[in-house]
């Protein structure tokens, strides 16, 4: 399997006044294309921080993040924004939908950064909403949708521009068990059928079972556990 990400000696710390905190130090690992990886670990262990570095919305203190030959940590702000729009789909714990836009308009947002025509965008939006099973809700606003449905809209938005990787930060953290399972099944389907590489942060062991492998991040170190996917 070819690797999508290569992280080398990756360190991240913060300085608060005179104090400096190290979140993790000299992490080295690869994420292969087509992987579905769950990152687990106690609260504050740096899971979100790692995801931010993979997604190019934060920069490491040292070390490198390489994605298919691109040194993500070295890109200028403008290039980084463009790289994100073409390579990454984000899925957040609180969905982060625009409350004043309809489901379809929310899903269309990443396509506004492409050269696609209005008609092409409309088709892509319809397909994405179809994949997450919300074709009949395209005119609804986030407030009119349940939490699970909102997260599905967010997933549609994350996949609509056909990125290589989906980065999910506690995607089921705010959902009940049933909605959570539906979301996780959708993610699994995106991984298996559409070949999306997925990195998912979660602290829920039953969510992690949907992934191909689990990584435990604790005190700045990784411990890998490979496991059978849940049925």
């Amino acid at each position: 399997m070819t690797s999508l990400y290569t992280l080398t000696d990756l360190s991240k710390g913060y300085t608060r006044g005179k104090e400096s905190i190290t979140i993790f130090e000299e992490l080295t690992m690869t994420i292969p294309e087509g992987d579905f990886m769950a990152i687990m670990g106690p609260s504050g262990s740096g899971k979100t921080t790692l995801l931010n570095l993979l997604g190019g919305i934060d920069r490491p203190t040292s070390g490198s993040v390489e994605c298919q030959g691109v040194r993500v940590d070295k890109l200028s702000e403008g290039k980084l924004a463009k790289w994100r729009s073409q390579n990454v789909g984000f899925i957040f714990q609180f969905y982060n939908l625009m409350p004043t836009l309809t489901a379809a308009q929310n899903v269309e947002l990443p396509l506004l950064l492409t050269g696609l025509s209005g008609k092409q965008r409309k088709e892509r939006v319809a397909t994405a909403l179809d994949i997450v099973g919300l074709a009949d809700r395209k005119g609804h606003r986030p407030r009119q949708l349940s939490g699970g449905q909102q997260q599905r809209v967010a997933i549609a938005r994350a996949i609509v521009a056909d990125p290589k990787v989906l980065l999910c930060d506690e995607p089921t953290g705010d959902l009940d068990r049933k909605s959570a399972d539906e979301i996780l099944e959708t993610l699994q389907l995106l991984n298996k059928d559409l070949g999306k590489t997925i990195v998912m942060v979660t602290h829920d062991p039953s969510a992690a079972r949907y992934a191909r492998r689990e990584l435990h991040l604790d005190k700045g170190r990784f411990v890998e556990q490979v496991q059978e996917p849940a049925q």
Partner: protein
Amino acid sequence: MFNQIGAVTMINLRSIPQRAGLSLATIISIALVTGVLLGFLAMSNGFRATLQGTGSESVAVMLRAGSQAELNSGLSSDQVRLIEEAPGIARDAEGAPLVSGELFVIVDGIKRSSQTEANLPLRGVGTQALALRDGFQMVEGRMFEPGTNELVVGAGVIREFSNFDLGETIRLGPNEWVIVGIFSTGGSVFDSEIWADIAVIQNLYNRGTGVQSIRARLTSPEAITELQAYEEGEPRLNLDVQSETDFFAGQAGGTAVLIEIIGWPLAIVMAIGALAGAWNTMYSSVDTRMREIATLRAIGFSGFAAAVGTMVESLVLAAIGGLVGAGATYLVFNGVSASTLGSGFTQVVFSFAVTGGSVLAGMIMAVIIGFFGGLVPAIRSAYVPLLTVHRSE
């Protein structure tokens, strides 16, 4: 890029109802500023239009040099005589020069609207005065008899002041007068005056044979230069000679400028207040949209698009405020009749005029408020930290 900016702008504008209170306050404060500015401009425009509509090109007005207004001027009867012999002066059928030495004193009248005292000009005139006002006509009654305590009253005075009805006796200062006629000059400033015989006023006000202004009909508008040259070359004359048109334009200019001198700074001070309000509104707009902006940026939208979206929101609020202010001013003030202190501290009746130019000035002011109020918040929205995406709300 246009897609991005369009989307961000649409998201911002649609979210305005979530900040309805603050946005409305901004619109109202900008509307007030625009309204006040337009009110003052309408006043000065109206005033200017009234006084500029007055006056003839072929009448010369002469005051003591440097005196600016009739009230400050003082001339001797010798100077009147010298002007009667000057070149460029028209003569009547009998060959008498059309020159009128006039006195100008201020009396108190009672305003109909407020029942308070206000200044009224009482002009002492001779028989030639009528020949120097185009369109002069008696509306009711007759002209005063020379040498008597009879008055004729301008039509504007009747409208605005009490106790000037035909046939009434009125006390002005220490003297009693009988009102024998109402005249009109077709809406010019003279309609705001009362006229009596100059000899009687010279006597009652201890002016000897002195006058305050001289009006003379010219043989042609161009003859003014001849008259001016004559005045220059005659050491016994020390006058400012100008056409009546120029004279009134100067008078109007003074007062109109005065109105604007009060109006602009007041509007600007209010504008600074409105700017602070707009700034605050836009700051809070960015605050409440932080996570949305960060999310858009994470998706790949540019900081520039975020900034433009914020700026457009600010400009839209300001433009709505400006339009509301201009519209309200137009509805309330345009064409409304008012009277105010003219030059020489007398009442001049005029109409407010909300002109296209002043509406434009008001809108430009509103947009400037919107621009500067939105500038820092717009820059701030370009630099929203991306990690704000993880905020729970």
